[in-house]
């Protein structure tokens, strides 16, 4: 709590203009700094930073459950994790999600964003399709629905007997789907779960890309059209390079969301799906900690999850840097 008080001095010294009134350590100024910086920072350090730091230590202990005693075991938890088949399965599933879900979401969202902003006909002004604001409003709906509720709705839609999907499929004559368990078959459980996540994310990222595209001067699209670029060609060669930074941000957000697919998978397949085909790392971590009580081991899983998250972000930056260099060289 005392830290912010002496900290005022150097900032004041650097601003000669405000030296007169600013220099004095009045009650007003001291209380201001303590409350404004100290209070939020204290909360943040105690409830966010300290658990992160403690996790690194707990991950090297054999702490099991609520006993106060545990031993420091170094990296044994990590070697155990490397041989844990179920955990390895969950890592694979999470990585698969982090590759497929952002890719599918960004492709669809970019297509929709282009359609509602610049794809409104090859003649006349650069504009979106008619009724584009309706599509934009509707596709954003899922963002206002809590993830757990989306999961519950879709679990019902996928229901083998009473579900909407099989109802539609049998109504159009596909009798073999009469009681097909979309979430109960190894082949379809994961794709069906991925679709739900994409369904939920597309609207938000469409709106995000629409905002980015609106920042691009219309002349650029006009020039592309005069050069004979079609719609898809325009998305690939004009829109994508120009809103590259927004796509990168979206990719990282989506990847982090896909690596933390806990809530979706808990709603769709709480026990990991058929043959653990939809089991993701966070689910395995949660069960290991709060159902089995192996806290040390579970925190080691958390460390692996954090490393994969950082690795993912680094990959996105790297890919953007590499392709960015090539594109700039070729086009400008």
């Amino acid at each position, binding site marked *: 709590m005392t830290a912010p008080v002496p*900290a*005022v001095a*150097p*900032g004041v010294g650097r601003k000669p203009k*405000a030296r007169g009134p600013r220099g004095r350590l009045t009650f007003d*100024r001291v209380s201001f700094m303590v409350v*404004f*910086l100290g*209070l*939020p920072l204290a*909360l*943040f350090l*105690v*409830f*966010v930073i*300290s*658990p992160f730091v403690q996790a690194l230590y707990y991950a090297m202990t054999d702490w099991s459950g609520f006993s106060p005693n545990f031993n420091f075991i170094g990296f044994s938890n990590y070697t155990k994790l490397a041989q844990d088949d179920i955990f390895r399965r969950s890592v694979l599933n999470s990585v698969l999600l982090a590759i497929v879900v952002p890719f599918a979401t960004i492709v669809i969202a970019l297509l*929709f964003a282009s359609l*509602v902003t610049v794809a409104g*006909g*090859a*003649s*006349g*002004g*650069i504009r979106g399709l008619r009724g584009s604001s*309706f*599509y*934009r409003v*509707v*596709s*954003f*709906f899922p963002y206002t629905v809590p*993830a757990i*509720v989306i999961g519950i709705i*879709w679990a*019902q*839609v996928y229901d083998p007997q*009473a579900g909407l999907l099989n*109802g539609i499929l049998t109504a159009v004559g596909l009798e073999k789907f009469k009681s097909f368990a979309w979430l109960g078959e190894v082949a379809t459980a994961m794709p069906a779960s991925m679709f739900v996540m994409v369904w939920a994310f*597309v609207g938000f990222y469409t*709106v*995000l890309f629409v*905002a980015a595209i*609106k920042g691009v*001067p*219309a*002349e650029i699209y*006009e020039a592309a059209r005069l050069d004979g670029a079609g*719609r898809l060609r325009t998305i690939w060669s004009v829109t994508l390079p120009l809103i590259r930074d927004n796509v990168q941000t979206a990719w990282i957000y989506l990847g*982090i969301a896909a690596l933390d697919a806990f*809530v979706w998978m808990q*709603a769709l397949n*709480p026990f990991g799906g058929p043959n653990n085909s939809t089991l993701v790392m*966070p689910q395995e*971590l*949660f069960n290991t900690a709060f159902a089995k009580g192996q806290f040390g081991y579970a925190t080691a899983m*958390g*460390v692996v999850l*954090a490393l994969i*998250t950082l690795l993912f972000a680094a990959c996105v930056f790297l890919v953007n840097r590499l392709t960015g260099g090539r594109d700039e060289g070729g086009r400008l």
Partner: protein
Amino acid sequence: MTADASTVSRAGVQGAATQTTPKANPGDRRATAVSHVILVIWSIVVLLPLLWAFVSSFKTTNEILSSPFTLPKSFSFANYISAWDTAGIGTSFFNTIVVVGCSLVLVMVLGAMCSYVLARFQFFGNRAIYYLMLAGLTFPVFLAIVPLFFILRGLGLLNTLQGLITVYVSFALPFTVFFLFAFFKSLPEEIYEAAQMDGAGEWRTFFQVMLPMARPGMASVAIFNFLGLWNQFLLPVALNTDPAKYVLSQGMASFASQAGYSVDYGALFAAVVITVLPVLIVYIIFQRQLQGSVAQGTSR
């Protein structure tokens, strides 16, 4: 601002374009039709499950299980009553309003104060705090969840709404600070100096001069924080295990897993509608502002 600029240039472009390509060719019309078909299909894919859940919420469980398409025979709110009372969705709803409401107010006040100091005062450790916040934003909550459980237990805050509010505020803080940092950074220094000249202390300068100027940014962050906290699932599931204190997302999850055994699907759909409808209606009313907020978030 960007909208104005693009309409101006659009108008210019339109004039030039009508001279060069006066009529739409058939291929172009076909592409437009295909585009509409794609967007209409997606709209149906989005709307159909939501509408289906809404209609099903008025059906009895027997009707739901017999066919996914039939309309309810009689219109009644029986499902809503049983979801609200028997399934405890009512209690969860009030808990959620208390927790999300308190957290939102606290995180906006604390986040604004913290970002204001970080953006406008230079002191030792300023950058370090900023990067620490960035780290707090990047690392997955799952890494922190086990130690957090024991921190809360040690403080006697486990399974209490106050504890949940504290954790919500702490984890929403980094995002809030980041977003508002840019806003406070852009406010002109002269205004601060003028307020100081007029004899306002630091406290008054912030609350009466600077904070009102950051109102557009505050509104955007508040919307994002509201949706984020309303949506929160892991933190309550791990840290708030007393059914009487469940928040809505938790109540829904436990209701859905119970419905597997007692099979009250009608009430489950009613609970879904109770959860979705208030926010959806607010969104439809304010959709322009909300989409504007998303736009602001990107152009930062």
